[in-house]
């Protein structure tokens, strides 16, 4: 389980990053006078719970190899056996995000804390349009509030291709 504090500054940065200037995501005075009454998080904000996942594979960690460029384009590639499993590699194709779905029981409010638990869904395969096998993996994540009620359920589908997708 990941403890995910819903911080107002984090919401503001997230809303900026998707180019949404709506003051409901940043301005407490505006929010107070709105129907909702509080700064809320944008619909896809729970994705940022990755920041609070100690084992998240797509974040560099001190003292561990990373695939991003340094003096070479491949960074720590020579120690690739240890690097993040989900990072893209030319020899094994690419991992990509295929689908994302959310069910909202309510909107998320700045200042509360959510608790995320992930559970596996199904896995399936099909042939790609340009040959090669596509492997799809589904993951569900429930975001519960302090009372144990589910605020949001996310369903993510990842796909691993056996070749890169630039031409798709």
């Amino acid at each position, binding site marked *: 389980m990941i403890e995910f504090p819903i911080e107002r500054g*984090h919401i503001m*940065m*997230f809303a*900026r*990053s*998707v*180019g*949404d200037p*709506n003051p*409901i995501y940043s301005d407490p005075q505006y929010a107070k006078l*709105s*129907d*909702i009454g509080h700064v*809320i998080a*944008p*619909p*896809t904000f729970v*994705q*940022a719970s*990755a*920041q609070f*996942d100690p084992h*998240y594979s*797509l*974040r*560099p960690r001190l003292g561990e190899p*990373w*695939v*991003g*460029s340094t003096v070479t*384009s*491949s*960074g720590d*590639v020579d120690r690739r056996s240890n690097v993040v499993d*989900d*990072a*893209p*590699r*030319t020899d094994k194709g*690419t991992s*990509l*995000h*295929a*689908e*994302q*779905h*959310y*069910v*909202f*029981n*309510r*909107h998320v409010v700045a200042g509360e804390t959510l608790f995320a638990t992930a559970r596996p869904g199904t896995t399936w395969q099909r042939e790609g349009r340009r040959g090669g096998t596509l492997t799809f993996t589904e993951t569900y994540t429930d975001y519960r509030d302090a009372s144990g009620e589910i605020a949001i359920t996310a*369903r993510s589908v990842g796909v691993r291709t056996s070749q*890169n*997708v*630039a031409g*798709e």
Partner: protein
Amino acid sequence: MLLKASELHVGYFHEQIVVDRLTRTQMVQYAGASGDYNPLHTDEVYAVQMAGYPSVIAHGMLTMGMVAHMVTDFVGDGRLTEFGGRFLRPVWPGDTLSARGEVVNLWRFGDKSFVELALSAVNQDDAAVFAGRAEAIIDG
């Protein structure tokens, strides 16, 4: 915007440009906010020389976050009950994306009014990069 079920009909749509010539800087902003630091999205040297792509590729979730901007502008804040979709094509730096939501269903359940939207986003070549759907509670 206060969306009212009584003023809507199937086929009604809302469309807006959600990014005009996407910058690598915005992709870095999204990486920093979301926590997804995959170098494929932020490290041009890695993406081109190591992974073999023409450039860095936008996070799928950046595209979806931008589509969410259109959806919440359409239905209002805190109204969504469902939102989802599929990523159909890579989004690259320089792309301009237009997102569209079209009413495909309207119904009442108890004292609440719901709307279902078909969602799409296309790039400057009118090629689809995202397709999905959303449901929201709206005023009667």
